[in-house]
């Protein structure tokens, strides 16, 4: 190990530059190239949900990957974000939509803080199960009190159009770009956070609470902060999911399955990795589509679609296990290793 330290320091500068270039290239493609070549289907059915889920993954990764607190209630915070944004937008029409989104994030952060309180005393599975309280309580409250959905008789609300100043984003590409902008900003902030003292505190608390306390990390405050920040980001992801993607908000869409889905994203993508959330989300969004489409094309004539779908469930479950066994650090690590191999090759 120690032998490799020197060269890695030497190489670290160019590598950072390469990393920056890669990010710039991805952003260029995402902001400029894709909008001019992609189809509606690409934006509406793949990229927009991908962005929302990736953002939720980034949020959960801060909490679970970096700070080591497992949460099974992510979908609840998405729901809080979505409903809060709807209500801010509805009840205070003067608010610019972006401000509504920030307020929605803050609301989610507040709720996250409350449901993060047990983390001060509970560990491991006891904590994981207690976050389920958030999952069920939030869903119940949103369904129960008609006020949240503006007393709409069916409890499902139609999302208002996305608007910044006087520009309305009401095309497929528009909604995509809107989401992309928000995701880019928040991801950058999250990335900064992980590099700052706060991020190091998160990791210290995850790795060894007692040791963290000894070196002067405020453990309790760090845990609560992790819950708040993570819920903020997940809440905004909920706004995107409801407003940019589905364009309808209903509590049932934010169920336990969604929470698990986000958890899968960060496992498959890689814990404690911002990039991992994106890779994981890409996998979770694209892979089932691919599987069912391919399955449908190849086996469509032979077996009925039910069998294809069922097999898809099995394959996804098996892949999760496989990842945990073969690559517990997820796609991000897989990529890193591939890159190292490429970079290590004599040129």
């Amino acid at each position, binding site marked *: 190990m120690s032998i490799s330290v020197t060269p890695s320091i030497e190489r670290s500068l160019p590598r950072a530059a390469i990393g920056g270039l890669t990010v710039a290239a991805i952003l260029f493609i995402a902001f400029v190239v894709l909008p001019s070549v992609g189809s509606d289907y690409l934006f509406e059915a793949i990229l927009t949900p991908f962005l929302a889920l990736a953002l939720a993954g980034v949020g959960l990764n801060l909490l679970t990957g970096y700070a080591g607190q497992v949460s099974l209630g992510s979908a609840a915070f998405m729901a809080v974000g979505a409903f809060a944004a709807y209500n801010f937008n509805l009840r205070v029409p003067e608010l610019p939509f972006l401000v509504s989104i920030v307020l929605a994030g803050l609301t989610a952060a507040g709720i996250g803080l409350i449901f993060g309180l047990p983390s001060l005393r509970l560990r491991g599975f006891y904590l*994981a199960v207690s976050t389920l309280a958030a999952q069920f309580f939030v869903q119940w409250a949103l369904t129960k009190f008609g006020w949240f959905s503006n007393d709409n008789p069916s409890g499902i609300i139609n999302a208002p159009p996305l608007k910044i100043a006087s520009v309305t984003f009401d095309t497929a590409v528009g909604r995509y770009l809107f989401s992309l902008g928000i995701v880019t900003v928040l991801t950058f902030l999250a990335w900064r956070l992980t590099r700052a003292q706060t991020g190091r505190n998160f990791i210290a608390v995850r790795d060894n609470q007692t040791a963290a306390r000894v070196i002067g990390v405020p453990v309790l405050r760090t845990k609560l902060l992790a819950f708040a920040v993570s819920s903020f980001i997940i809440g905004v992801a909920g706004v995107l999911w409801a407003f940019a993607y589905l364009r309808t908000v209903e509590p049932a869409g934010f169920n336990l399955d969604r929470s698990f889905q986000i958890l899968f994203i960060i496992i498959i993508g890689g814990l404690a990795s911002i990039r991992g959330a994106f890779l994981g989300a890409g996998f979770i969004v694209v892979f089932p589509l691919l599987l069912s489409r391919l399955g449908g094309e190849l086996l469509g004539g032979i077996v009925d679609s*039910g069998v294809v779908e069922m097999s898809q469930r099995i394959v996804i479950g098996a892949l999760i296990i496989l990842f945990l066994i073969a690559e517990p650090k997820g796609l991000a690590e897989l990529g890193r290793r591939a890159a190292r191999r490429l970079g290590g090759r004599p040129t």
Partner: protein
Amino acid sequence: MEDVQFFIEVLVGGLLSGVMYSLVAIGFVLIYKTSGVLNFAQGALLLFAALTFVSLHERGVPFWASIGLTLVLLAILGTLIERVVLRPLVNQPPITLFLATLGLSYVIEGGAQLLWGTQVHGLDLGIDDVPFEVGGVLISSFDLFAAATAALMVALITLFFRYTRIGLAFRAVADDPFAALAVGLRLTRIWAIVWTASGVVALVAGLLWGARLGVQFSLSLVVLKALPVLVLGGFDSIAGAIIGGLLVGATEKLAEVYIGPFLGGGIESWFAYVVALAFLLVRPSGLFGQKLVERV
């Protein structure tokens, strides 16, 4: 007077519902004790067991033969899980194992439905569910039967662990896996047996729940009822699972009937979790759970 009767009725009904939760929770405890895994696939296992039994039975296989065949399948499944999932993941942090069981639940659910179809089945265990009254309090005969079954099962499990070699080995592993390994116990075999045992518990629970709900996909959702029981009772205590179940069942029903109307009803879905949570703040490892010792 009528109010008192009603209160008792709700209480008894709640306690008996609680037994049904305990049944599911016991399956979790068995696995948690030996391998430190919160096995989220227990619900899927329950679905698989009940669906397999019903499908065999509907195809004309006699009752006990179906039970036997299902048990054989569960044993195979348990061994497979140990071999394919647990063994490669040994020494991984508990959370990784937990997530693996989430994946496992997808595989089992999908597999069970692929094998037996998505039809909804009725399940008649031949117990008439006619209520009878004791001093004006209505009691369900089916629930009593379920409670008796649960008691019998717990007794059998206790005997098994107290008086058989495997049971002894199990306890040794639960106490200290490293010491158990050191004295030459074969961990992997014990795991396979424990998974099979929890499969048996899943079959019993699946049949009783299946007789109530019908055998269908939603059967796997009963785990959500068992989780607060586990938190309350402690993940590693069978006694805790039973007492936790009774407590959750009773408080949940009483809350729904007496507090529910003030909140608009339907509070059962989260009330148990809140109770468990409030309780945990006082005792972070549940009623009977082992204290978490933090090693540095």
